[in-house]
């Protein structure tokens, strides 16, 4: 993975020098170890700020739509993992950006690590993070641990079947081998196997710590509505407090707005300060989209999303 970064920097520098793009959106190191932040760079001198490692968990497609709402801006290059590229495709399909406004620097991805899993190994604060291919060396004032990356992968990366960007202008590395899974939706099936009251209790428990910060919404590239339903006040669809019903309503509707669009990039879970696995909601919708419509979001620029178009073959058993 680290080998890609030189290539990314070189591509970025070339694009800026040629004037092909106005800026390059990528990852830079955060202010604490084991964290990255998104940056938009406009000068090729800044290229060495770019990084790409196993903690680039956010989705950069998010910053494109919010950046380019005014169509005056020039072309933007985006460093895109498989899921980021799929979300860029979703943006294009949904007419948020046009294909010629962006330049996709595709990066083959071997997954991102779950920071909470690593943090759980330590009692004190993590002060150092190094990675060398599959080996991660994490240190804190009290000890240093070496872990295998594959042991601490995020769940969505473990079940990811699109590690290489489906659409790109240039690839920054050799494509990695895609995973094939026997049971990609095991987690969804486990919940589905419970009885209704247990499922209800499961989701109540899941969201009980929610502080309604909307970090999941803000991290999500799909959430670009100018006024979100949670901010609407006439009528007010959902209360703003931490009442159980309001919290579940918020999570339900947030997830449902992603139906047939979610690429399971995991940015929502990454952003959640309370460690809620909000993907439990969206995963079910992804599974249904795949089973009912044979659809996975963001793979094709020419296909319309299933909930966007009518087809005579649409499942209609639920209608009397």
């Amino acid at each position: 993975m680290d080998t890609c970064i030189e290539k990314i920097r070189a591509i970025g520098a070339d694009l800026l020098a040629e004037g092909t793009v106005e800026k390059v959106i990528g990852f830079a190191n955060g202010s604490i170890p084991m964290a990255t932040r998104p940056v938009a760079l406009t000068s090729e001198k800044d290229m060495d700020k770019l990084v790409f490692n196993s903690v680039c968990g956010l989705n950069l497609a998010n910053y494109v739509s919010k950046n380019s709402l005014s169509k005056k801006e020039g072309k933007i290059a985006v460093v895109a993992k498989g899921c980021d590229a799929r979300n860029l495709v979703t943006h294009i399909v949904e007419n948020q950006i046009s294909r010629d406004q962006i330049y996709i620097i595709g990066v083959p991805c071997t997954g991102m690590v779950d920071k909470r899993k690593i943090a759980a190994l330590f009692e004190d604060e993590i002060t150092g993070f190094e990675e060398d291919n599959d080996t991660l060396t994490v240190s804190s004032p009290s000890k240093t641990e070496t872990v295998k990356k594959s042991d601490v992968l995020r769940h969505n990366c473990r079940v990811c079947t699109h590690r290489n960007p489906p659409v790109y202008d240039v690839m920054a590395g050799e494509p990695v081998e895609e995973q094939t899974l026997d049971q990609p939706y095991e987690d969804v099936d486990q919940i589905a196997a419970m009885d209704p009251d247990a499922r209800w209790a499961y989701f109540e428990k899941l969201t009980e710590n929610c502080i309604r910060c909307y970090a999941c919404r803000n991290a999500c590239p799909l959430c670009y509505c100018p006024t979100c339903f949670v901010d609407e006040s006439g009528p007010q669809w959902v209360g703003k407090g931490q009442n159980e019903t309001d919290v579940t309503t918020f999570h339900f509707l947030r997830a449902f707005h992603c139906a047939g669009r979610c690429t399971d990039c995991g940015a929502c879970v990454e952003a959640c300060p309370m460690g809620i696995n909000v993907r439990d909601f969206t995963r079910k919708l992804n599974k249904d989209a795949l089973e009912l419509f044979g659809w996975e979001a963001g793979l094709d620029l020419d296909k319309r999303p299933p909930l966007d178009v009518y087809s005579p073959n649409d499942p209609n058993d639920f209608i009397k």
Partner: protein
Amino acid sequence: MMGNLLEQMGVDRDRIHFSWISSAEATKFVDVVKEISDKVRALGPNKKFVKDYIK
């Protein structure tokens, strides 16, 4: 799909109904109302997704 997600969350499937009735099909309308009403009566009052002040 919405019905499925509600079901995944533990809301009974029989609480959400969709149907398609032409304006000339008064008999179908009556049949569907009866059917839905019977199903929901069998389930009893809803306790999920309800605001506290209603409970």
